[in-house]
Every structure is written in structure tokens, then in C-alpha cells.
């Protein structure tokens, strides 16, 4: 979002961009936000490659586990876990020893124990590759040994026993992607609509802008929900719906720019050379509005992320097993009393990202604002 390609054709444009970059670099809040935001993006995009857990991997043994820096399972609970796992096979645990990442246990039963009983043990999330090491005389007692699977849940798990950190990363990817794509959609519609309306002017302009006004005065919520209803709860279409709402402001800004641009000499020159209206809009009007548009977009992206999260919060957005920060916050709200971390961590990520995006946007606007030069 930050690097705006300078209009390389004229040297003056480049120096203006250079000036803007200088001003941006001097803005401490914006630079700090840029760093934080980069860390956020890298965490969300690259994090899942590092994380040991997938976002949709459910651990039945670890439902709503509190966040912790030390690995699960706790050693004191292991004996009970094994007893529960073997209960169904009518086998009881006589002795249990956990040493580091391995365990040995002696199992007894009043019937001969089938060695396949180890599968019951492996089925628990806590144990793995369990093997029979010794069998008693009549097979009523066996000794088994295996590995203790250690799992880290830095931010705890959700109500389905899924790692919250992995889900926050996925949610971040979805939220950021939607923010970016929806902004681009709104940019696309808004720029074309505004430039056309402003350039043609007259009655066409009147009608086109009246339509924008009517869409403006429709209750915002209604418009959003209607679009979601039309497009269905499809991941790809959500950002189309959001972009289709957010273009109204963009159209107004571009129209205003176009109105002042179309009286400029180079536009008249282009028309005198015989360029069609479409070509003039495409080649001369739109490239000259880009500066304003980019400033506007940086302010818009956090708003779009907010809107997506808001939709997801109402259950209209991204559907399971995919997730977004809005969905995570909504889930956290439901389990607030039993598992407050489910609310705190997603909200934290969300707030930090939005705040840093806001500061970046403000900084860019200040840096690019022609009035302040």
C-alpha cells in the first residue's frame, strides 16, 4: 500500500514523491506504525508456515485451553488421561511414569490384554507411537512405552480445541486480503464512475450523481445486508459487496477532481487532437486523479477491514472453517466468561492493526497533501 509508483515521465513528479517520502519518514507515529504493521502482515502471512498447528486442526483434549508459554499436556494430568483413554477397553493403569518426552506405563486387566490396545492410547492427543515393551505371563499385565506429544498453545485454544494463534493468523490473512481487494474494487468502480460523470457533465452528470445521492441516503446497514443477501455468503463475493458500497465516496472525490481537470489546457489539447472521450478519460483524466485517490485509499483500507469484521461479527461474512478477525471476536464474545483469551487476543491483533493502518494513512495524507507544502 505504501509505495506509490511515481509518475516517472516527468522529473518534477519524482521529486514531489521524494519530498513526500521525506516528510513521511519524519513522522514518528507513522514510521512506528509502518514497522508494527509490517510485523503484523509478516506474522499473518508467514506465520502459518512456522506454526505447528493448522488452523482447522481440532484437538479434542485441549478444548478452551488457557494460553500458556509452557507446553501442554501437564505431567500431573497424564495418568488420568491414559486411564480415561483405556477405560473403554476395560484396562486400568497400574503404574505410570513420565520422563521428559517419553512415558512408560504398566496396564492391568482381569482379562488377557490385546496388544492392539495401544491404539486407544494413541487416539488421545497427548500420546503417540505407543508400543508394548513387555508382556506379563498371562497377558493380564503389559508394559507400554511411547512418546508424549507436546503442544504449545501460546494463545490458548477455541471452543473446538483449535489453536487460537493459528486461527488469528488465518483471520488476519482474510481480513487484510479483503481490505485490500475491496478497496481495489471500490477504487475501480469509483474512479471510472466519477471520471465519467465529471467529464461528460451536464444532464448525465446530474443523473449519475443523483443516483449516488440516493444510494447514500439508504441506510448503510440495509445496503450492506442486501448486497450480502444478493451475493450469498461467498468468501470471494464479500469483498465485491463491500467494494460495491465503498465506491460512493471515491466517485465523489474523483468527480470533483475531474471537474477541475477537464478545463485544463492539456485536456483541451488532447480533444483538439481528436481523441475520443473514452480515451481522454483513460489517458489523461484518470492518471491525474491518482494522487488524491491513493491518499483516500490508505484511509479507506482500515475502514473496509472494519466493515468486513462487522459483517463477520453479525455472521454474514466469512464462513467456517475459514475465519476472520470479526468472526473470532464474535466467538470470543460468546465465550467471554469461560475463555476470555478468545476475545482478548483477536481484539488485540485487530486493534493494533487498525491503529497502525490509521496512523500510516494519516501520515501519508499529511506527507502528500499539496496544501501543506
Amino acid at each position, binding site marked *: 500500500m505504501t509505495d506509490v509508483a511515481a509518475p516517472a515521465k516527468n522529473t518534477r513528479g519524482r521529486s514531489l514523491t521524494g519530498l513526500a517520502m521525506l516528510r513521511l519518514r519524519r513522522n514518528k507515529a507513522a514510521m512506528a506504525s509502518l514497522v508494527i504493521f509490517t510485523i503484523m502482515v509478516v506474522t499473518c502471512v508467514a506465520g502459518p508456515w512456522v506454526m505447528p498447528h493448522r488452523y482447522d486442526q481440532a484437538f479434542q483434549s485441549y478444548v478452551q485451553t488457557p494460553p500458556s508459554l509452557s507446553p501442554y499436556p501437564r505431567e500431573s494430568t497424564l495418568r488420568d488421561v491414559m486411564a480415561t483413554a483405556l477405560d473403554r477397553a476395560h484396562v486400568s493403569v497400574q503404574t505410570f511414569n513420565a520422563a521428559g518426552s517419553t512415558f512408560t506405563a504398566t496396564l492391568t486387566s482381569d482379562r488377557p490384554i490385546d496388544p492392539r490396545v495401544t491404539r486407544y492410547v494413541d487416539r488421545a492427543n497427548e500420546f503417540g507411537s505407543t508400543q508394548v515393551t513387555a508382556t506379563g505371563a498371562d497377558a493380564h499385565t503389559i508394559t507400554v512405552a511411547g512418546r508424549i506429544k507436546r503442544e504449545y498453545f501460546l494463545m490458548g485454544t477455541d471452543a473446538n480445541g483449535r489453536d487460537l494463534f493459528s486461527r488469528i493468523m488465518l483471520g488476519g490473512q482474510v481480513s487484510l486480503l479483503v481490505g485490500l481487494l475491496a478497496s481495489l474494487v471500490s477504487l475501480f468502480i469509483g474512479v471510472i464512475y466519477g471520471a465519467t460523470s465529471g467529464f461528460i457533465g451536464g444532464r448525465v452528470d446530474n443523473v449519475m450523481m443523483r443516483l449516488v445521492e*440516493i444510494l447514500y441516503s439508504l441506510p448503510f446497514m440495509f445496503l450492506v445486508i442486501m448486497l450480502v443477501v444478493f451475493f450469498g455468503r461467498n468468501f470471494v463475493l464479500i469483498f465485491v459487496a463491500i467494494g460495491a458500497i465503498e465506491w460512493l465516496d471515491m466517485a465523489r472525490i474523483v468527480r470533483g477532481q475531474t471537474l477541475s481537470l477537464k478545463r485544463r489546457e492539456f485536456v483541451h489539447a488532447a480533444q483538439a487532437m481528436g481523441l475520443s472521450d473514452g480515451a481522454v478519460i483513460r489517458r489523461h483524466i484518470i492518471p491525474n486523479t491518482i494522487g488524491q485517490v491513493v491518499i483516500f485509499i490508505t484511509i479507506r483500507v482500515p475502514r473496509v477491514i472494519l466493515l468486513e469484521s462487522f459483517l463477520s461479527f453479525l455472521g454474514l461474512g466469512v464462513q467456517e472453517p475459514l475465519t476472520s478477525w470479526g468472526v473470532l471476536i464474535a466467538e470470543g464474545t460468546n465465550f467471554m466468561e469461560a475463555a476470555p483469551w478468545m476475545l*482478548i487476543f483477536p*481484539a488485540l491483533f485487530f486493534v493494533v492493526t487498525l491503529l497502525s493502518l490509521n496512523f500510516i494513512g494519516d501520515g501519508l495524507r499529511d506527507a502528500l497533501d499539496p496544501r501543506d507544502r
Partner: protein
Amino acid sequence: MFRFILIRLASAIPTLFAVITVSFFLIRFAPGGPFNMERPLPPQIMENINRVYHLDDPLWRQYLTYIQNIVRGDFGPSYVYRDFSIAQLMMQSLPYSLELGSWALLIAVVGGVGLGVVAALHQNSVIDVVVMGFGNIGITIPNFVVGPILALVFSVFLRWLPGGGWGDGSPRFLLLPIIALALPELAVFARLTRGSMLEALHADHIRTVRAYGLPPHVVVVVHAMRAAMLPVVTYLAPATAQLLTGSAVVESIFGIPGVGRYFVQGALNRDYTLVMATVVLVSLFIIVFNLIVDLVYALLDPRVRYD
């Protein structure tokens, strides 16, 4: 003055009409209908239901009927909340939203303007930085985060306040939802006030008034604030309309039986009449408060006259 009000109200009618028309056809063209169940009803029954509600008429006739009914003030029955007319549903739920919204508005305006003025008077001081930081946070963090966090801290961790419900309508129950509603708007008001107040304090006429030797509080309150309030008053119209017509998010978080939830439920259930009523309600509020704001302009700005 009276003429101006009449002209403004008359000019709002086409807008309202267009809004009603667009939303009527939008919701009708949306797939699904109010009587689409998970298990489809037998066709004969569907036919009967459609006949009772005139849903089998051609769409333009339904539209004309609806417009006629609205002009007579009849918003029809709800399709999903059986046995309730839209008027009844609104009468039941609107008072809750209005009460919450008025308190939130009061807090947002008084608090926001107060903070903004203080920040502007102490520009670049610690107070200013704190207020602006708060303003940034308030604008960025939506109420679907503020609401749950407030509930988590004050009712789950500290156990000071109930986590939801209207209860007996006492302040204990209302405090959290009001704060959740007010905070974002308060931040906006604070930022707006600070900006325009700074501009006003540097204006020529304020320097003149100061040179006359008027006491500082008179300069600030009577002269600077009067000029600085214009953008604040402009924002007041949409903010009021939004706060008074309820928030789907805050009402669902705190379990308030207000109007807000009907926005979402109505559209999702394709409860045509309910959706239309919420649309008309919001549009009416916006139009009326815009008018009031225009009138307040005349009080604040001597250059504006409506005669």
C-alpha cells in the same frame, strides 16, 4: 423561517420517495422470501399465503399498494413476527433505542466538545496528546470490540455491573451499552471540535476581541466556540440519526430489545414490511435532523439567513 421549513420538508419528499422505491425493489429482487422455510411448504399452502399477503400480485401493483398504505401511515403486518403489525413492533422497541441513544448522544456531545475545547486551548500539551490519542483510538476501534471488552472487564472480571439485558432500566443496566454507543462518537466530536477550535482561536476576529481586553473565558465561550461549533453541528445530524435508531451490534451484545436488531433480522428473514419500515425510519431521522441542523446554523452563524 416557517416558509423555509416547509420548503425543506417538501424537498425531502422526493428523496424519501426514491429511497423507499429503491429499497422496495432491492429487497423484492433478493432471492428467497419471508415464507421460505428449511422444509418447503406445500404449494397449495404457499399459494394461499401469497394470496393473503397479496404477494401473488404483479410487483408494480404491490408497490403501488405499499406506497398508498405508507401515505396513510399503515406499514402493514410483519411477515415473520406473526400477530404483530410493524407499528406495534416499532412502538415496543423504539423507546429502548431512543433512551439509550439520547444518553449516548448527550455524553458524546458534552464529553467530545469539552475534551476538544480543552485540547485546543492547550495545544501540543500533554492533555492535547492524550485527547488526540484517545480520539484516534475511539475512531479506530469499532463498538463491536469496545462493547465486549467493556462487558468482559466490568461484568466478568470486576463483577460491578450486569453484563446485559434491560433489567428495570436503571443506570446499572444502561451504563455499559451507553458507553459502548457513545465512545466512537465522542472521539469524533473531540477531534472535530479540536480542529475547528484551533482554527477559530487563530482567526482575526478572536484577535480583535482579545485586543479589546475581554476576559479569556468570554473570548473562548462566546466568540471562539460559536464559530467553532459549525462543523460539530453538521456532524450532529448523521450522528443523532444513527444513535437514536439503535445499533444492531450494541443491542445484540448487551441484549437490549431495541430497534437495531430488526435491521439485520428483517433483511435476513426477508420480512419485507419490517425492512421497509426500518429504512423509512432511518431516512426520516436523517431528514428531520438535517433540517434541525440547518436551523441551528442560522442561530450560530449570523451570515446564514433563511428569510
